[in-house]
């Protein structure tokens, strides 16, 4: 029972922290929160700009993860970033192409692209097949991307979602086509691979900071700040427990028992 209660309280505390920090950040005269430089996000405007100027398309991959599974947050982050990028890239001669391995993510991506064209008063430009399921398994997805990048005149790839080792197939295709790749995954093993193979890798939780870096909305910046506070709390807790256990073991050897 206790672990359920602790989990519940942590979730409520974290949600409350995001909510309160968002309210504070939206107040008039609130000092804007600073962000450290992340190379991948710094390079995004140039990648998208190059696609628009050269009349080629930008490829946005939301990964091989599925909505409704553990990979949902990473996929949702990719979809949010898709909204931001598509708003800029939609004016290109060739519209952005979105790839996924999940039917639900494809439907959401289609909805987002439709909304982007609607906002730009060009609903007739929307292509229902711009959001594609290119493979239904992670390996099939990675293999299919090796064809998408050279065949669909892609000028750059933004991969933000849940991918495993198959991400290497995509980054390799990007290297061969000499197009830049911005890539981040929620899987540590894939992050290590992307660090070695992608032009602009996203490491650790950088993937989830995409919204804050791209649109700089106070709510997203506040969410980042809340994550930092939680990390400090958890890290501090781990250090305290280690110190306590060490002291307990040392004192025990001297014959003093701590609770």
């Amino acid at each position, binding site marked *: 029972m206790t672990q359920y209660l602790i989990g519940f309280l942590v979730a409520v505390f974290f949600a409350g922290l995001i909510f309160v920090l968002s309210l504070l950040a939206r107040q008039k005269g609130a000092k804007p929160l600073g962000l450290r430089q992340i190379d991948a996000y710094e390079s995004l405007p140039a990648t998208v700009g190059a696609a628009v100027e050269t009349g080629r398309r930008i490829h946005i991959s939301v990964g091989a993860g599925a909505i409704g599974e553990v990979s949902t947050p990473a996929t*949702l982050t990719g979809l949010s970033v898709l909204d931001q990028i598509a708003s800029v890239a939609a004016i290109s001669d060739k519209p952005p192409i979105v790839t996924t391995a999940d*039917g639900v993510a494809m439907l959401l991506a289609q909805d987002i692209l439709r909304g982007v064209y609607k906002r730009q008063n060009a609903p007739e430009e929307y292509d229902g097949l711009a959001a594609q399921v290119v493979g239904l398994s992670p390996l099939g997805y990675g293999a299919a991307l090796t064809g998408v990048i050279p065949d669909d005149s892609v000028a750059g790839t933004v991969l933000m979602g849940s991918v495993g080792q198959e991400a290497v197939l995509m980054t390799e295709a990007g290297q061969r086509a000499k197009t830049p790749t911005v890539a981040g995954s929620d899987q540590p093993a894939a992050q290590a691979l992307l660090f070695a193979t992608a032009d602009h890798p996203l490491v650790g939780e950088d993937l989830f900071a995409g919204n804050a870096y791209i649109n700089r909305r106070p709510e997203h910046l506040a969410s980042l700040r809340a*994550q930092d506070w939680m990390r400090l709390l958890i890290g501090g807790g781990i250090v305290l427990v280690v110190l306590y256990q060490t002291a307990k073991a040392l004192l025990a050897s001297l014959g003093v028992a701590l609770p």
Partner: protein
Amino acid sequence: MKIRWGNVALTSIAMIAGIITLFGYFVDRNALANANILVQGVYAMRLLLVSWAVLLAAVAVCLGAVNLGAVHMRKVFKQSKGWPYSLFILLGLLTALAAGFVLPFVGLTGSDPLGLGPGMYSGLGNPLIQWVFRYLQAALGTAISGLIVFFLVFAGFRLLRRPTWRLTSIVFGIVAILSLIGMAPFFLDPLDPAHLQVLGVTLSDARNWIWTWLSQVPAVAGARGLLLGIALGAIATGLRVLLAIDRPYGE
């Protein structure tokens, strides 16, 4: 400011469904019988919502397959670059569909018309589906996994050839070389000169100590740090959707 009631309704439904599902996960199933009616209700609602989600996800898989077929049919009809590959994909899709549909129909014609045994005409028991998975999908998947090793070696080499060396690249290179030495089958022979002791320590022991320390201290510490950050980022993303800060479900 004009209120868009459609958006308000969508957001409210998403928030309520999300919050009920989240709270449902904090209900202890073993203590459910003694819980009050509100907790039992939340738990039951969570199960209902998750079962709806599973059903919708199954429909979405079908739509995904239709999308896959439509994309490649368009490529074939327009004869876009790489269209012959699309033709192969369409043939594969149709073959897999046929494998799944034909035998169940045969099974309907009699109790066991082909003598395959009961329950072998549909579902996972279908021998055609099993053949496709075993000899096509599994074989191709293994081949692609094997290719990844070569891509990784090239990528590592390319990383070390970058014109501007960063500290991370240098550390990566050193750790990669140490790991290769650490995992290589050297020094296994007790008569190997590496087992000669220098200051009471053999070369073999030193290699094992460095490799064990590298893989169990900095690597594990780094991985745990990454996992903690990823977990917090994932939770924050989920909470932003629950608080309607992010709305991926439409305009």
